[in-house]
């Protein structure tokens, strides 16, 4: 056991910190964030390109596809430093953390050569086409079909909750190639450019006021056989692997919890209650912050401990659900505290100014305990695969 940085990690940490101080300021953060809300991915692409050129975009990937063949712990150093410096929301994460790693393991040579470097450098923004109106938690019941033809496949059906689908260049679709009712065995995965004729994307307005998710309609979308990932019928394997990687990717929100906690503490330090007393001096506020800080320490340490269980390149096991469940619930609690305490304080010009974003962030945090397998599905996974309870 050794919880300090290795010389390599320490060098990387210092290097990334210097790089961020030189390349990221508040104007940049706001610019990228506002563009994402407006459905414009250009500033994010530019930021991703810079990360890539600095060698930070896909640290643990093979050099051939733009990686540094770094260890997973170097990835963690990166995630941590980015979070501590309040780096902009990473809209490329679906590609770099979920789909890329799956293609590395299961993709054809052609798919890897064509897609991976672009995924890393910001030229390919990915979306994931799993859920359907009738198939959410019960993913294996999905009905959208890929019909085999002599030129490849025709995709027909509807997907929903595609994150960033309205800005994406490519999408990995999970489709039924087998009989209806073939469940897990009759699924196949396809990588498809979003510009293919027959694909229509409609953004979904969320309760937070944002529109990060979409409906995707597939009306006889023709794709070549080379778009299939793995063999016909391998779809479930692809999906499970991706969901495992996604849980891990989402679990990097352990560091986001640290980011939100630091902001929470900073904000509370500036707030006063009606009588003029500092909010920070109230016993219930101090206790709430202290209790949250314990959980934030857990989230950060969990990231390190759970990643040590996984060899490089391998998908994390069911234990990742423990990490995901904890970090996503905490993420909600932190945003909830941010909102509660801002509202509890005396309304001033400053609080009025931050309130809309505070509401938006809290309402937006609900998606984290739903996406990538709901908190309830995570509990099932923990119970059945970690605690060995009967199905």
């Amino acid at each position, binding site marked *: 056991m050794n919880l300090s940085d290795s010389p390599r990690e320490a060098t990387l940490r210092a290097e990334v910190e210097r790089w961020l101080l030189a390349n990221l300021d508040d104007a940049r953060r706001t610019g990228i964030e506002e563009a994402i809300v407006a459905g414009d991915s250009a500033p994010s692409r530019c930021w991703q390109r810079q990360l890539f050129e600095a060698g930070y975009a896909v640290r643990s990937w093979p050099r051939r596809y733009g990686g540094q063949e770094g260890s997973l712990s170097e990835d963690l150093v990166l995630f941590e430093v980015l979070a501590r410096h309040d780096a902009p929301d990473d809209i490329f994460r679906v590609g770099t953390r979920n789909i890329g790693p799956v293609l590395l393991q299961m993709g054809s040579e052609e798919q890897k050569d064509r897609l991976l470097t672009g995924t890393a450098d910001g030229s390919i923004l990915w979306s994931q086409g799993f859920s359907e109106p009738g198939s959410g938690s019960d993913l294996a019941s999905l009905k959208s079909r890929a019909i085999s033809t002599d030129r490849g496949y025709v995709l027909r059906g509807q997907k929903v909750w595609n994150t960033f689908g309205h800005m994406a260049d490519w999408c990995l679709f999970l489709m039924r190639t087998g009989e209806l009712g073939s469940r897990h065995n009759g699924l196949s995965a396809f990588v498809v450019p979003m510009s293919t004729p027959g694909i229509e994307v409609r953004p979904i307005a969320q309760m937070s006021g944002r529109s990060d998710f979409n409906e995707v309609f597939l009306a006889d979308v023709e794709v070549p056989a080379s778009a299939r990932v793995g063999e016909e019928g391998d779809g479930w394997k692809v999906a499970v692997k991706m969901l495992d990687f996604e849980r891990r990717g989402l679990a990097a929100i352990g560091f986001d919890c640290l980011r939100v906690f630091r902001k929470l503490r900073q904000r509370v330090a500036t707030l006063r209650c009606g009588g003029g007393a500092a909010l920070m001096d109230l016993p219930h506020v*101090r206790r709430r912050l202290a209790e949250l800080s314990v959980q934030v320490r857990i989230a950060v340490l969990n990231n390190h401990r759970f990643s040590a269980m996984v060899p490089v390149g391998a998908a994390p096991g069911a234990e990742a659900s423990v990490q995901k469940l904890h970090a996503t619930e905490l993420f909600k609690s932190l945003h909830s505290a941010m909102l509660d305490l801002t509202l509890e304080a005396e309304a001033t010009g400053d609080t009025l100014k931050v309130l809309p974003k505070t509401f938006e962030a809290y309402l937006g945090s609900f998606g984290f305990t739903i996406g990538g397998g709901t908190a309830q599905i995570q509990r099932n996974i923990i119970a059945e695969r970690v605690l060995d309870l*009967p199905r």
Partner: protein
Amino acid sequence: MQFSFDPEQQMLRESVLAMVEPWRSTVGVSGAGVAGDQLWGTLVEGGMTGVCTPVEAGGSGLGLVEAGCILETLGAILDSGRFLMSAVLATQLLSRAKGDGSLELLARLASGHLKASVLLSHESDGVFQLHDGKVLVDCGPTFAAVDGDLVVMVVRGRDPDLPTLFVYSSNTPHLRFEELPVPDVTRRVHTVRRCALPVGDATAQYVLPRDAALKLRPMAAAALSAQILGGAGEVLELACQYARERTQFGGPIGRFQAIKHLLADDRVMLDGLRSLTYAALWQLSADAQDGVATAYAAKSWAADMYGRVASDAIQVHGAMGIAAESRPHRYLKRALVDRVMFGAPSLYLGALHEFNAIL
């Protein structure tokens, strides 16, 4: 960064587990028997009592992570806490003490013939005050003190930069223990009546480096958290076992999500404690910056989660859970007292609030 056990640490874990295996199935059946000398004899024979002892005193010279591996296993069988007090806390303090005879004392502790316990004051650092040539003893409940031979205390002298380690015989005049009537038969808990111990009655005094004195409370907190980790893990496993075996409505009750989700949440809490505890033990051993804060976080987290996991285990056992013959209630009884042992959660949360500025 490598947050996992080295092969040697893994081997140690396995050998302790094998060592205590005979006691595992009898937790709560033999009651106080678990706390007894037989287990101590096994630990001594296996060289465990010298794990933290410096090599020059004949020990293995290992750190707190290794101690944690043993403490976790002992927590699972609800041991008396003698190992925590004597082989970990007292040994760690004495290892840093400067003065004649400390190595001999350490060697005798490692041999298991002599047993020591450590008292912590009510003050935030757990250190006692010296007044008029007497050590003013004012502290909360403690364990493994009466059946031990020595009581060890860190005392602040006139110069706060020069703390002193005082060693008293546990039956020194003026020191009065009163048994706390708790229902946990696996570990006796005592309160110490407020008293003033003449300096001259001490069997030994050592100068202690200031940083060693500052680690007193965090070390106690982290060590107890390791023991709690073992207990909570074991009682959760008991609940899972029962949920796999007990059938109702034509199948095992563990197939119901009401049961699954309860136990999954407990597992998440337990994993949180595992991360905090071993990080704290490592950081304290390595003098890392976060050690104190992580140890306090561990203790405050452990305080409430142990009771919760044990309560859930009783609930999952249904009516069997409230029967004296079943095991989970033994863990609940331990948890209720461990919650305030070495200080209530409010003490640790209060201190954490100050540390969070650097989080």
